[in-house]
C-alpha cells in the first residue's frame, strides 16, 4: 500500500487518535504543573503507577470508572509527595522528579510481584470498549476515525477544552498561571502560592496516572513491565512543543501519534520491511527532539518555572 493511501484510511486515523489519548492526559497533567511553576519529572513513574493501579482495581472486581478513579488517586498521592518536597521545601525539581519516577516505578513493580507472584503472562481484564456516537459515527472517514473510540478517549479530548477554559477563563486558572509567572504578585494578592502550586501538581499528577491507566484499560487489557516506555518523557517534550497551551499540546499529541501510527504501517510495506525495525522505533524520540529544537526558540516558558518561592524572600 502506498503511504498516501494509508493517510486516507479511517483505521489509520482511528489508531492515531487512540495513540494520542494517553499522551493527551499526561501532557495536560504536566502542563498544569508547569503552568503553576513546577517541572514534574515524576511523570514517567506516575504513568506506570496509574497503569497498574487502574488495571489492578478492575482485575480485583471494581468497575472500569472506579479503576480510573483509583489510578487518579494513586497519581495524586505521588503528586502530593512531589509537591511537598518541591514546593514548601523548595528542593531541586529535577532530583525530586527523578526520585518520584524511581519510587513510583519500583513500588509498582513490587506491588505487581506481590499481587501476582505466580503468573507467567499477565491476566487480562475486560477493558473499555469503543462506543459509536450516534449520527456522528456515520460520517464517512471521520466517523469511524474519531467517533468510534472508547469513552476514555472522548474524556481526553473533553479535558483539553476543560483545562483550557479553567486556565484562561476562571480566577482559579489565572491564579495558577500567575503562580508560574509571578508568584510574588500572587502572594501580594493574599493567595497562597504554596497551596496553588501543590494543588496544581496533585491534580496534574492525577491526570498523568489516568494517561497511564489508558494503556492498561483502553489501549490494551493487561499490565506489562516497561509498558509506558518513555511516553512520559515524550509528554514533557509535547508541553514545550505546545508552548504550554492545552489546544496546541493536543495538536502536537495527535500529530505525534499520527506519525507513530504511520511508522507502524510503513514498517509493514515492502519498502519498510527492508529497513531495520529499530529505525522506526527511534522515530518518535527523534521527532520529539526535533520538535524541541524547532520550538525552543519561540517558546513562552512560564517565567517562574523551576523557581522555588519562599515567602519573605525578596
Amino acid at each position, binding site marked *: 500500500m502506498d503511504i498516501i493511501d494509508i493517510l486516507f484510511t479511517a483505521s489509520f486515523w482511528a489508531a492515531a487518535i487512540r495513540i494520542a489519548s494517553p499522551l493527551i492526559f499526561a501532557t495536560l497533567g504536566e502542563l498544569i504543573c508547569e503552568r503553576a511553576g513546577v517541572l514534574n*519529572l515524576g511523570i514517567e513513574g506516575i504513568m506506570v503507577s496509574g497503569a497498574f493501579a487502574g488495571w489492578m482495581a478492575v482485575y480485583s472486581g471494581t468497575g472500569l470508572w472506579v479503576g480510573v478513579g483509583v489510578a487518579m488517586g494513586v497519581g495524586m498521592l505521588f503528586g502530593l*509527595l512531589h509537591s511537598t*518536597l518541591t514546593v*514548601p*521545601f*523548595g*528542593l*531541586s525539581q*529535577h*532530583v*525530586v522528579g*527523578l*526520585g*518520584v519516577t*524511581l*519510587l513510583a*516505578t*519500583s*513500588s509498582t*513493580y*513490587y506491588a505487581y*510481584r*506481590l499481587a501476582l507472584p505466580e503468573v507467567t503472562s499477565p491476566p487480562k481484564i475486560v477493558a473499555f470498549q469503543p462506543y459509536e456516537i450516534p449520527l456522528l459515527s456515520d460520517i464517512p472517514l471521520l466517523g469511524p476515525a474519531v467517533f468510534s473510540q472508547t469513552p476514555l478517549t472522548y474524556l481526553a479530548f473533553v479535558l483539553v477544552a476543560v483545562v483550557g477554559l479553567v486556565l484562561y477563563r476562571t480566577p482559579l486558572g489565572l491564579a495558577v498561571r500567575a503562580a508560574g509567572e509571578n508568584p510574588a504578585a500572587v502572594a501580594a494578592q493574599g493567595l497562597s502560592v*504554596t497551596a496553588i502550586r501543590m494543588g496544581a501538581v496533585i491534580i496534574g499528577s492525577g491526570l498523568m496516572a489516568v494517561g497511564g491507566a489508558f494503556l492498561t484499560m483502553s489501549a490494551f487489557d493487561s499490565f506489562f513491565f516497561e509498558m509506558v*516506555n*518513555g511516553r512520559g*518523557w*515524550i509528554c*514533557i*517534550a509535547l508541553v*514545550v512543543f505546545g508552548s504550554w497551551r492545552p489546544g496546541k499540546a493536543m495538536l502536537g499529541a495527535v500529530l505525534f501519534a499520527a506519525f507513530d501510527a504511520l511508522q507502524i504501517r510503513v514498517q509493514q510495506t515492502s519498502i519498510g520491511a527492508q529497513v*531495520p525495525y*529499530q*529505525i522506526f*522505533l*527511534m522515530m518518535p*524520540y*527523534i521527532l*520529539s*527532539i526535533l520538535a*524541541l*529544537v524547532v520550538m*525552543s*526558540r519561540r*517558546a513562552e516558558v512560564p517565567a517562574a518555572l523551576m523557581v522555588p518561592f*519562599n*515567602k*519573605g*524572600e525578596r
Partner: protein
Amino acid sequence: MRLEPINNPSFARKLVPPALALSATILIASLLAMVAGANPFSVLGLIIKGAFGSKFALLETLNRATPLIFTGLAVAVAFRAKFWNIGAEAQLYAGALITVLLGTGALAWPSGVILPVIALIAVFAGAVLLLVPALLKTRFGVDEVVTTLLFNFIFLLFISMLLEGPLKDPMGMGWPKSARLIPEASLPRIVDGLRLHWGFALAIISALCVWVIQTRSTLGYEMRAVGLNKQAAGFAGIPVNLVLVKTALLSGGLAALGGFSEVAGLKGSLTLDLSPGFGYTGIIVAMLALLNPLGVVIAALFVAGIFVGADSMSRAAGVPTYLADIMLAVALLLMVLAIMLTRFHVVRD
C-alpha cells in the same frame, strides 16, 4: 511555613536529619518486607549478608559498584555545574560499543597498547554523544533533561539494531550478542584467582582525578561557579557555555569509561542487558554522595551492596528484588530533604 537559613549549623544539626533519613528508609523497607509476609529483621540481615557477608559476596558488590562509580562520577560532575545529564545510560553503551568495535579483532596490538587506545576512543565517543545535547542547550536553549533522556531510548535502539545486524556474533546461536573480545583487549584481574578486574582500580583512579579537577583546577572552580549562579559567573567573566560544554565532555567520557570497563573487564561481549540501568542509578549514587567525587565511591559501594544483597535476599526470603529500588528511591528523596534541613529552619507563620 517558610524556610530560614541557619548561619552556623551545630554538629547535631548536621548529623540528625541525615541519620533520621537513613533510619526512615530502613523503617519503610522493613514495613514493605512485612507486607510481603517476611520477617523484616531477617530480610535486612539477608541483604547485609548477601552484600558483604562472604568473600564471594564482597567481590560481587565491588564488581557491581564499578560501573556505578563511573556513572555516579559522570552525574556528579554534570550536576555540580547544573547540567542535568540523565543520559549516562546511553554514554555507557557508547563506550561499550567502541570496546567491541575495536576489541574483537579490528586492532591486533599487545594489551599495553590496545587497552589505553580503546579506553581513550571510548571516552571520546561518550563525550561526543553528550556534546549533542550540550550544544542544543547552549545554542538553542533546548532543555538537556529531555534530550539526554530521549537519547537513551534512541541509542539503545541503535545498539539493538547493530546487535541484530552487522555486530551480531555468527557463533551466538541467534542471540543478539556481539563477538567476544580478543584476550589482549580484556582487562586483567587485579589479583589472580579473585574475580575483580582492573576496571575497579580505574574507577577509583577516575574518582581521584575528578576530585583533583574539582578542587584544584580552574575548570573545577568555573564548573562550581556556573552551577551556583550562571548570571554571576557570566558577569565574572567565566565563559558559561564553554564551561558547560567542557562539563558535558567530561561527564560523557566518564560514563563511557564505565561501559569500556564493564565489557573489557567483566562481560567480554556486548548485549542489550549490559546495563540494568547503571546510568539512572548513577544519579542516586551521585546525590547520596552530595556530588562529591570521593563520596561517589562510598555511595556506589552502598548502592551496589543493596542491589547484590537484595538479589540474594530475594532468593532466600521470596521478597521481590524491587525492594532494593524502592529503598534507594526513598533514600534519595529523604536524603535531599535531610541535607536541606541541615541548612534551613522550617518556620511556621
